Structures are given as structure tokens and as C-alpha cells.
């Protein structure tokens, strides 16, 4: 195949055409015959007992079909929203796993907790009627600060008297303590990893439809993984067997993790559509999204790094509080544990690592994975404390990292992972050259001449993605396998339909996957269709998150293609009257090795469906193959990021002057799309470090509940990015040699940016600032440090 279409080519995206014409088909764009509308009345209090809900007036309001409360859910004996991962704590006990009812029963536990649903002929009528619902609640003291949750005396759940979901640890504690005892220097850093709201631009939406002819349900939903929703909702909430339940996630307007989870609204509209025998649509507005989408991050950590006199890392200790919010969202328990503590070796040979994580219940919105999920938190921890250590020991930030790089592979970390391959010097060298690290001091001086404080910050990240080997995650508490499935349906005339369990909500799978198949089958990409998102069409799938789509989903496609080709060879051998072992497949042709005899892919495909001359005793007609691919290991993308900032010391405002990323993603299918993924990750990482902060007050009220107070990065806030990928180290264990690129930017950039800010203001004696580095926070840090310096 020419490289203008296959692997390695920056093919423009086929899906763009419909999006650019306004013909994308998002869930809220769909309307079902007889559709009704749901408005969800949510708690305005963070923590309260529900004494009585009077729905009489609302039920009688114009257009109202029915009003539902927790009592209806209880009467119907529906299950609660399930959690997909069970953590075993350090005493060998399972985590506390309180019930999460679809609509609140007895108590509300966060602002936004759903109390009642009005279903009406129109959205406005539903919302108008909701105003008539009379709720008698008794306000309770809210648990908000996870650091004091254990001793606050207030309980989010009866099952967790001290609000601890689990107290978990990983690594050799005694060995780590011994490493600290022998250290030349110990650096300590206490910091916050700020709570974020994913805010995909498309708010969540769900339409439930019951078909009484077949006793079938359909859920149209904004999901990253429709099969996971079918499994969780069907099996654990509504007791609907898979063959009676279709989940369809059409075009989805971004997810970033927040659309992985099974949400109560999905279960509600599906179930209630049978109750009222009409389809029900629910669409969140942005204000509702802020209090009902799972949030991300929200750790408070104390970390310590032990070093020898040369700056070699001897040991790392981390003690983290992780906020779970009021209920356990689908993957919440694994984020601060197996997706976080396992990454604490980073790119370094630190021999001893010990991590403790206490997951806390609070009266806040549930917290779960957000782009990077645990790995940004780990990278931030490491890359910040390394810079602090370098600052304390007078070492250059690049040099201290070089002294500690892992250089032999495979490498077994002290925190349970085995890195298969990598070349950390390559990305560090590349980024330092591209960003002109050597010339920085001259630029700093130039900025100073304009009254600006310039700083440069480095971050070297590694992530474990391509999630995940099923047996491994099963042993760690996952309640599902994390393989991927694909079907290659070769149609009689040789065109191909690819059914993938991965789901595209911005990643461009329709283009990338077609490139992979085009390359493998030697047929033009326009003869290949990629079908995703519909459980009725796709054999199975675990969806898209954890930068897994190409590494796992793409591998399943490759495996299914291999099966197609293997069968095609049998057919071709028959048609060409040759031995099967003599058939080779290349450039879309089945050839008899060493001869000019050949059959085109389409000819063989036709023979499979019109089997007049066919090895019918040996193989079946037809040409359709399915493969499930379970990865042998995680993949380990890695890279180095350099950020350069200018701080205005008068206002505290930080301007990003340059952001340079150098990544090793292994093999790359579509460089244009990979670069775009890095751009997006960088923007979200910069957002976390500079702008975004999901803040609660002491009563559990969300202070930053809209874009008026939650600062989203705009075009004016961001620089042009310099993004390069080094000729990488291909993944050793998947057939494409790919690693995953979706989360890298969000993982590598926050510490680079904060390191740069600290470098800029270190003259005041500042060695840390928490995210986000807003003008207020930077100015306050400078004020406090100046006052301290003046006092000394």
C-alpha cells in the first residue's frame, strides 16, 4: 500500500465531513416517536436526611406523566449503581462499598444527588412541575475536607464510620524506611492535586426506550463504552439480560473519562420507559453536569524522596488521601491505587518505593478517572519532588533525572510493573534541544529586563496504558476483563466492515482503524467501514479509556484480520491449485510463492460467498472473523516536556511562553491524529496547572459550579505547542508495536508547568506552589515569601 493511506500516513479524518457539515449525530440530536422528557430534581444540600417528598402538586401539573422518587426505585427492587473495582485494604479486608441508589433513599449525600424525576410531555413542563415538589429535609453537617474526614464525627455512610473507604498500601515499607535511614538528603513535599471537572463539551444525555413487542430495551447514551454500560446496568441494576438490552452510543462529544461510568440517569430512563411505555429523554445542562458528572483527581499527598550525595534516588515514600466523593463511581477505587501508586517509579531506578493511600468518603460529587487517571497524580508527585530535591541540592533539573534513568529493559519496578521497553535519554535529549534548554538563561535575562520573571520546568513522565491484562487486573480487584474484541466482515465483493469494541468520541478511530486494516489487507481505506458504539452490531467490547483503543482494540482488529487472511489462504490455495503452505498474502493478493499465479483479495472473498469452486469439505463458506485480544502487559509511553513561563510579579499572572513535548509512543499509525491528541492533553494539563479548580465551601456547596467560576482554557490562554515524537521504542508485546497517546499530554504537562512557575519565582525563596497557579495564588505566594524574607 502507498503510504498516503496506510500505517504512518497523516490521513485526514473521514469523520470530519459529517461533523463539519453539522451532520454529526449526537444523542441529544435523536428523538424517538412518542418521546417524553425527564427533569431531575437534585439535592441543593450536601448532606441531609430526606423526611418526606410530596409530589402531589407536581403530578397534577400540566403535561406531567409521572413523578418518580426513591420509593418507586425501592418498590421496584432495582439494584444500586454498581462499582466495577474492589480494593482490598492493607489488612486484607475489602473496601467499604455502600449502596448507591438510583434516586436518593433516606438521605442525600452531595449537592446534585438526585431526589425525584418528573417525566412530562416537554422539558419545560417537567422542569416547571419539579418546582412544585415539596421536600422536607433535615440538614446535616457535611464532610467536605478529606484530611479531617476521619475525625470529623460526621458520617457520609453508616458502613464507613470514619469515612474511610479503604486504607491501602503498596511496596516494601521496611526496605523504604531503611533507605531513608541511610540517605544523604531527604526532600519533603506536601501538596494538593486539585479536583477537576472533565467538562466534555457535550453534556451527558440518555434516552430509554422500551419495546413491548419484543420485551426489548434500548438505551441511547453518551458513553465511551456501551458494552460496559450494558453489562453493569443490565446485570447489576435492572436485571435485564444482554439479549434484551441494546446500548447505543452514537457520536459522543468528548469524554475524557467522565463518560466511562454507568450513571443513575441511564438506568432510570431505561427502567422508567417501561413503566410509562414511552421513550424518555434526559439531557443535562452544564450546571447539572457540574454536580452530576464524576469529577477527577483530588488528592492530598505528603511525599518524601531520599537521595544519596550524588543525587541518586534511594527511596520514595508517599502518603495520599484520595477523595472518593459521596459514592463509589465505576472505576473510582482503582484510580488512586493501581493506576497511581504503581507509577511511582517513573522513569527512575529508585529501588525502594512505598505508598499508602486512604480513600475517603465526603459529601461531594463522586470522583473517578479523568484523562490520565492516577498517572497524572503520580507523575506530578514525582516530577515535583524531584525538582524540589534538585533545588535543595543545587543540581540541574535535567541532570538529576539523567543520574536516575532506567536504561535496561525489561525493568521490574518496586511497585509491581514491568516496563518492556523505553529510551528516556532520547526524549530528554530531544526536548532539551528543541526547546533550547541551553539558551534559557539568556532568555531569563531578557525577560527580567522587561520586569518579568521567567522560569523553565522539566517533566519526564511514564504512563502505563493500553489497559489492561485481564488476569492481572482481576487479581487486583477488577470485576471485568479488559481485553478488546473485533469482527472483520469481508463482504462478498471484497469491501470490509470492521466492528470494534473501542468507541470513538474524538479520537478518530474511523480513520485510524481503517488505515490499519487497509495496510493489512492491501485494499483502499474507502472500502473499509469502521462500526462502533452499538451493542447490537458489535460482538463485545470494553470501550475507550486508558489510551487503550489502538493498543488493545487495534490489536484485536489485527488478530481478526490475521484469521481472515489465514482462511483466505485456504480458499486461494484451492483456487490456485497450490499447497496452502505455498500461499503468501501481500499487497492485497494471494500469491503462489515463486510464481506469477495470484488471486486478488476480492476474488477470494467472492469465492467464499459463492462457493461453487470451494474447499467445502475443509472450510465453511463466508469470510467473517472475530478476535478477542487480551494484552500481555500494559504499554509504557514516555516522554519529556519542557515548559517556559513568564510571571508578572505585580499581578501574579503566568503566561506560557513555550510548551515543548517530546514523546515516545512506539509505532505511530497517524502522526497528525497523534499530534492532535497530545495537543488536547497539553491543554487539559495546562488547564489543571493554571486555571481549573473545582472548589467546595465548608458546607459542601460547589463554589465553581459553572464556567463563570470554573476556568476553562480558551484559545487566548494557550500557546502554540511544539510537539515531536522521537523515533520510538515500539511496544514489544502487541502486534502493532503501539503504545497509546491519548493521556500523555495531560500527564506530562502539569508538573512541567508548575516546575517552571516555581523556577520563575524561586528568587523569593519559594519552592512550591499548589495548582492551579492562578494570579491570586502566585501573587499570594510571592507576598507570603516576601514577608517571610523581610522578617528574616
Amino acid at each position, binding site marked *: 500500500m502507498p503510504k498516503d493511506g496506510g500505517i504512518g500516513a497523516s490521513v*485526514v*479524518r473521514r*469523520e*470530519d*465531513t*459529517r*461533523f*463539519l*457539515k*453539522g*451532520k*454529526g*449525530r*449526537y444523542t*441529544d*440530536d435523536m428523538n424517538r416517536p412518542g418521546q417524553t422528557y425527564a427533569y431531575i430534581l437534585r439535592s441543593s444540600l450536601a448532606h441531609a436526611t430526606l423526611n418526606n417528598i410530596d409530589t402531589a402538586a407536581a403530578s397534577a401539573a400540566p403535561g406531567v406523566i409521572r413523578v418518580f422518587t426513591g420509593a418507586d426505585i425501592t418498590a421496584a427492587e432495582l439494584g444500586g449503581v454498581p462499582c466495577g473495582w474492589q480494593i482490598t485494604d492493607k489488612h486484607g479486608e475489602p473496601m467499604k462499598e455502600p449502596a448507591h441508589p438510583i434516586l436518593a433513599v433516606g438521605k442525600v449525600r452531595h449537592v446534585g444527588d438526585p431526589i425525584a424525576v418528573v417525566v412530562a410531555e416537554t422539558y*419545560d413542563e417537567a422542569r416547571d412541575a419539579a418546582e412544585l415538589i415539596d421536600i422536607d429535609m433535615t440538614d446535616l453537617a457535611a464532610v467536605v475536607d478529606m484530611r479531617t474526614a476521619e475525625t470529623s464525627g460526621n458520617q457520609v455512610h453508616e458502613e464507613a464510620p470514619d469515612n474511610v473507604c479503604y486504607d491501602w498500601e503498596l511496596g516494601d515499607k521496611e526496605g523504604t524506611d531503611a533507605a531513608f535511614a541511610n540517605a544523604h538528603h531527604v526532600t519533603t513535599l506536601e501538596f494538593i492535586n486539585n479536583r477537576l471537572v472533565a*467538562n*466534555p*463539551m*457535550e*453534556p451527558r444525555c440518555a434516552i430509554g426506550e422500551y419495546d413491548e413487542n419484543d420485551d426489548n430495551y434500548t438505551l441511547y447514551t453518551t458513553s465511551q463504552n456501551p458494552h460496559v454500560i450494558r453489562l453493569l446496568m443490565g446485570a447489576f441494576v435492572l436485571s435485564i439480560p444482554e439479549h434484551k438490552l441494546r446500548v447505543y452510543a452514537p*457520536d*459522543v*462529544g*468528548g469524554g*475524557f473519562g467522565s463518560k466511562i461510568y454507568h450513571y443513575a440517569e441511564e438506568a432510570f430512563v431505561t427502567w422508567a420507559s417501561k413503566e410509562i411505555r414511552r421513550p424518555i429523554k434526559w439531557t443535562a*445542562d*452544564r*450546571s447539572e453536569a457540574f454536580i452530576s458528572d464524576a469529577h477527577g483527581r483530588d488528592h492530598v499527598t505528603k511525599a518524601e524522596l531520599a537521595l544519596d550525595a550524588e543525587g541518586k534516588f534511594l527511596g520514595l515514600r508517599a502518603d495520599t488521601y484520595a477523595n472518593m466523593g459521596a459514592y463509589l463511581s465505576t472505576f473510582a477505587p482503582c484510580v488512586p491505587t493501581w493506576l497511581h501508586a504503581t507509577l511511582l517509579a517513573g522513569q527512575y531506578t529508585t529501588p525502594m518505593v512505598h505508598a499508602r493511600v486512604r480513600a475517603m468518603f465526603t459529601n461531594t460529587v463522586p470522583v473517578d478517572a479523568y484523562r490520565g487517571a492516577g498517572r497524572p497524580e503520580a507523575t506530578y508527585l514525582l516530577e515535583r519532588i524531584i525538582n524540589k530535591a534538585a533545588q535543595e541540592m543545587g543540581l540541574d533539573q535535567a541532570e538529576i533525572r539523567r543520574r536516575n534513568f532506567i536504561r535496561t529493559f525489561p525493568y521490574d519496578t518496586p511497585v509491581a510493573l514491568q516496563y518492556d521497553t523505553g529510551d528516556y535519554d532520547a526524549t530528554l535529549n530531544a526536548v532539551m534541544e528543541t526547546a533550547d534548554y541551553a539558551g534559557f538563561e539568556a532568555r531569563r535575562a531578557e525577560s527580567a529586563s522587561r520586569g518579568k520573571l521567567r522560569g523553565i520546568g522539566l517533566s519526564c513522565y511514564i504512563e502505563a496504558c493500553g489497559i489492561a491484562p485481564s488476569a492481572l487486573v482481576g487479581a487486583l480487584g477488577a470485576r471485568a476483563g479488559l481485553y478488546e474484541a473485533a469482527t472483520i466482515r469481508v463482504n462478498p465483493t471484497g469491501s470490509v466492515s470492521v466492528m470494534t469494541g473501542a468507541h470513538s*468520541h*474524538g*479520537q*478518530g478511530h474511523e480513520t485510524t482503524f481503517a488505515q490499519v486494516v487497509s495496510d493489512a489487507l492491501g485494499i483502499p481505506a474507502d472500502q473499509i467501514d469502521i462500526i462502533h458504539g452499538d451493542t447490537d452490531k458489535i460482538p463485545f467490547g470494553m470501550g475507550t479509556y486508558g489510551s487503550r483503543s489502538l493498543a488493545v482494540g487495534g490489536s484485536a482488529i489485527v488478530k481478526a484480520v490475521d484469521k481472515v487472511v489465514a482462511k483466505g489462504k485456504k480458499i486461494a490455495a484451492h483456487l490456485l491449485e497450490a499447497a496452502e503452505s505455498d500461499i503468501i498474502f501481500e499487497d492485497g493478493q494471494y500469491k503462489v510463492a515463486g510464481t506469477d499465479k495470484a488471486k486478488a483479495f476480492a476474488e477470494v472473498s467472492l469465492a467464499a460467498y459463492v462457493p461453487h469452486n470451494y474447499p467445502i469439505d475443509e472450510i465453511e463458506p463466508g469470510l467473517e472473523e472475530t478476535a478477542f485480544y487480551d494484552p500481555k502487559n500494559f504499554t509504557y509511553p514516555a516522554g519529556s516536556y519542557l515548559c517556559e513561563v513568564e510571571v508578572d510579579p505585580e499581578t501574579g499572572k503566568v503566561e506560557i511562553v513555550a510548551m515543548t513535548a517530546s514523546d515516545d509512543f512506539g509505532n505511530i499509525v497517524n502522526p*497528525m*491524529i497523534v*499530534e*492532535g491528541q497530545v*495537543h*488536547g*492533553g*497539553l*491543554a*487539559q494539563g495546562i488547564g489543571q496547572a493554571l486555571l481549573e479548580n473545582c472548589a467546595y465551601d465548608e458546607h459542601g456547596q460547589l463554589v465553581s459550579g*459553572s*464556567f*463563570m467560576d470554573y476556568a*476553562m*482554557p*480558551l*484559545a*487566548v490562554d*494557550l500557546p*502554540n*505547542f511544539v510537539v515531536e515524537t522521537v523515533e520510538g521504542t515500539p511496544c514489544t508485546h502487541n502486534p502493532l508495536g503501539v503504545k497509546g497517546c491519548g493521556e500523555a*499530554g495531560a500527564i506530562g504537562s502539569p508538573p512541567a508547568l508548575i516546575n517552571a512557575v516555581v523556577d520563575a519565582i524561586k528568587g523569593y525563596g519559594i519552592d512550591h506552589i499548589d495548582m492551579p497557579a492562578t494570579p491570586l495564588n502566585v501573587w499570594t505566594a510571592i507576598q507570603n515569601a516576601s514577608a517571610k524574607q523581610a522578617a528574616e
Partner: protein
Amino acid sequence: MAKVTMTVNGKEHSGEAEGRTLLVDFIRGELGLTGTHVGCDTSQCGACVVHVNGESVKSCSVFAQACDGATVATIEGMQNDDGTLGVLQAAFQEHHGLQCGFCTPGMVMSASELLKVNASPTEEEIREGLKGNICRCTGYHNIVKAVQSAAATMAGAAQAAE
């Protein structure tokens, strides 16, 4: 309820709207033009940007009845007559200026007005001009490139026509 008539993408449309019906809901619900999206409720995200009487507006912050008699352009009217992508749309595709596609219609409509007002904007002017549109996917880098490219293409076409 009142009858509202407007010319949308060159065709006259009528429908029913309450006083509180927003233009975006009228376009999506009554006219079935679902390319215009709603991404926030504070007039900030710009997923709903359309042109009313030649000016870009946030259709979530204008009432449908207030547009009775108006000329409205939406993303569905931006392609060429033969169905191919217009210059700006093609530039977004060429430069990978979109990912999930949800903000894209509003982004294109804002960029379209930006180029109408300023045919050769600087990078800074483009970023300022897109201040009313939030994209969560792209980091804006490729959107800026797309707008620059479209400006150059349009300038080239204008020059060729002279």
C-alpha cells in the same frame, strides 16, 4: 405560543415558539437542524453560534420570537452548493482542527465571522476572535492553523479573481 418565521440558510421556515423558546431550541427542535449545539448555560461555550442578520450570535442567548423575520445562517448552510466542504470547513479537516466535533459548528461559525471582519488576522487576533468558543479536545492549536490556512486560501482566491 406564537408563529415564528425566519429565513434559515436561504430557505424560509416557520414554526411555533413560546416567549421563552431560545433560538437554539427552535433551530434544533422545530427546524430539526441539529448541527447547532448547546454546551453550557452561561453564554460562554459558543457551541451554539449561528449568524443572525449577518452577525454571529450565541443562539442560546437569543429568543426565537426575537428572530421573527430574521435571516439566519447555521453550520448546515456552510458547505458549497455541490455538497463539498466550504473553504473554512475544508481547512478544519486539513489541519485536524476538530476531534469530537461537538464545538466544531460554533467554532466554524465564529471563525467565519472573524474572517469576514478581518481577512488576514494575526494569530493573536484569531485567538481573541475565538474567545467565545470553548474546545475541550484540540487545545486550539490546530483550530488556529485552520483559520490561518483558510484566510490564506481566501486571499489567494480573491487575488486570483482580480
